[in-house]
C-alpha cells in the first residue's frame, strides 16, 4: 500500500491537532502489547448520556488520530448510541462488517485503509477498546 493511501490528510491533521486530548494521569491506560502504545479515555456525563469524551495517550498516527476521531464522534451521544457505534467500528475494522458502513460516521471512515493490515488494526482499535471499557464501567 502507498504511504499516502493509509496516511490520508485527515489522519495527519488529527495526529497534529488532536481533538479532546488532555492529561488524564489518574486513569489506567489500555496498552497495545506489540508496541507499548497506550490510550486512556474519560467519559463525562451520566449513565444515559455522554457529554464529553477526553483522551490521553501516546502512539502512532493511526492510534492517536483514531482516538481523536472517536472522541469527536461519541461526544453528545446517548450511551446505547455510543455502544452501537463502538461495536460497529470494531466490527468493520476486524473485517466482520462491510467497510462502507463507516461512511456515514464522518472522519473515522478515513481509517478503512487499516482493515487489510492486521498489525495496524491493533493501532486503530486501541482507543476504541479503551472507550469500550469506559462504557462498561458506567
Amino acid at each position, binding site marked *: 500500500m502507498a504511504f499516502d493511501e493509509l496516511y490520508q490528510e485527515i489522519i495527519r491533521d488529527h495526529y497534529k491537532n488532536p481533538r479532546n486530548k488532555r492529561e488524564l494521569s489518574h486513569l489506567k491506560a489500555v*496498552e497495545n*502489547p*506489540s508496541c*507499548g502504545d497506550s490510550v486512556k479515555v474519560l467519559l463525562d456525563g451520566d449513565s444515559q448520556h455522554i457529554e464529553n469524551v477526553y483522551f490521553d495517550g501516546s502512539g502512532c498516527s493511526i492510534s492517536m488520530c483514531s482516538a481523536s476521531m472517536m472522541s469527536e464522534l461519541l461526544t453528545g451521544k446517548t450511551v446505547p448510541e455510543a455502544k452501537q457505534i463502538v461495536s460497529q467500528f470494531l466490527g468493520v475494522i476486524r473485517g466482520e462488517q462491510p467497510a462502507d458502513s463507516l461512511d456515514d460516521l464522518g472522519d473515522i471512515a478515513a481509517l478503512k485503509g487499516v482493515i*487489510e493490515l*492486521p*498489525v*495496524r488494526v491493533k493501532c486503530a482499535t486501541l482507543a476504541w477498546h479503551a472507550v469500550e471499557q469506559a462504557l462498561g464501567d458506567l
Partner: protein
Amino acid sequence: MTNHQELLDAQPKVQRLRQDFPILNRPLVLGGKPRTLVYFDNAATAQKPRSVLDAIRSYDENANANVHRAIHSLGEEATRIYEASRDRVKTLLNASSREEIIFTRGTTDSINLVAQSFAKLLSPGDEIIATEMEHHANLVPWQMVADQYGLKLKFLPITDDGVLRIDQLPVLWSPRVKLVTLAAMSNVLGTINPLEEVIAFAHERGVPVLVDGAQSVPHMRVDVRALDCDFLAFSSHKMGGPTGFGVLYGKKEWLEKLPPYQGGGDMIRSVWLDHFEANDLPYKFEAGTPHMEGAAGLHAAIDYLDAVGLDWIHRYEGLLLDYAMEQLKGIPRIRFFGTAPGKGGIIAFLLDGIHAHDLSAFLDSRGVAVRAGHHCAHPLARRLGVVSTARASFYFYNTKDEVDAFAAAVRDASAQL
C-alpha cells in the same frame, strides 16, 4: 455384501485422491524388488497432500516474516495467513470464537499446557479421572502434576473387548474430582468413547472434561459446541498438516481462568523487570515466534479434508475396517485387541508366538508399513496382557487392494515365521 459393494464403488474416488499424495506414489525398492508402499501407520502420522506442501512452500517463498509485530508488508501478510488459519480451525470445530483456538506444538503440548495451568487452580487431594486406555500424552502430564501438587489420579477401567466401563464413573466419582480427561478414540483399540455421556455426567456435577482428539479430529466431524467439551487437543500431523503444530481448543471461560503456561514474546500485554501482565486470548497461551509454516499447512490440510468430506472419511474407514477384519479373521494364530462395536479404522493384532517387531519387519519387507510396540500406551498393553502388538491404522487414501496385500502378507507371516 452391500457394504462390500459400497467399498468397491468408493475405489475410483480413493484412487483419484491418492494422486494428491506424492509419497504414496513413491517408488520403493525392498530387497532388490520394486514394491508399492502400503502405508498403514496413519495413527502415528498421516501423509500430506500436495496442497499442504505447496502452502508451506508458498508461505516461505512469498510471505515469511514474524507475525503480530511487524509494520511491513511481509509481516502483515504473515499475520494474515497465521490468523486465517485460526479462523479456519474455528470453523472446522464450530467453536464460538477465535479466542478459543490456541496454537500449540501438538496434542502432547496442548495437554501439558492444560495440565500445568489447571493444576495451579487445584488443592492437594483433588482428583482427576482418566482411563486405562490413554496415550502417554494424556497420562504422564497428569502424573507429573499429581506428583508436584499432591493430586490423585483415578482410572476408568475397560472391558476385555476394549470398551470403556462408563458404568464405573459413578463408582469412581467423588466431590474431589476436578477434571475428567479421556481420548475420543483409542490409538490402539480403535474404540470410540461415549464422550457425550461422560461430559453430561461431569457437567451435571460442575466438572470440566478434556478430550484428547488426536485420533478423532482427523477422521470424523468434531463439533465442540454440540459435544460441549471444555478442552479438545489435537495434532496437525495426524490430519495431513505439518509436524510440530497442533491445537488446543478451550472454552473461553476456562481459558480465561487458567494462568499462562509459557512466558515470552506475544503472550504479554506489558512487561516490567519484576512482573508482567498477560495478553488477551488466544495470545496469552502462545509464547514466542509461532510455527507459521505449521499454520499455513494446517489451513490447507483442513481445506483438503473438508473437500474430501469428514463424514465420508469416517464412513469409508469403517468399510475398510470391516473388510480388513473379514480378510484377517481366518488366519491361523491371529489375535485381535479391541473389538468394540462401531470402532475406528485401527486394528491391533498379534500372531501367537511371533513377536510384533518380527511380524512388522516381515510386513515391511513386503512394503506394508504397520507399527509394532506399545503404541505409547504402556499401561494399556499391560492391561491387555501383552508387551507389544502390531497395529494397522487406515486413512481415507488407503484402498481395498492395499488391505488385500496386507492380509496376504499377514497370512504368509503366519505360515513362514
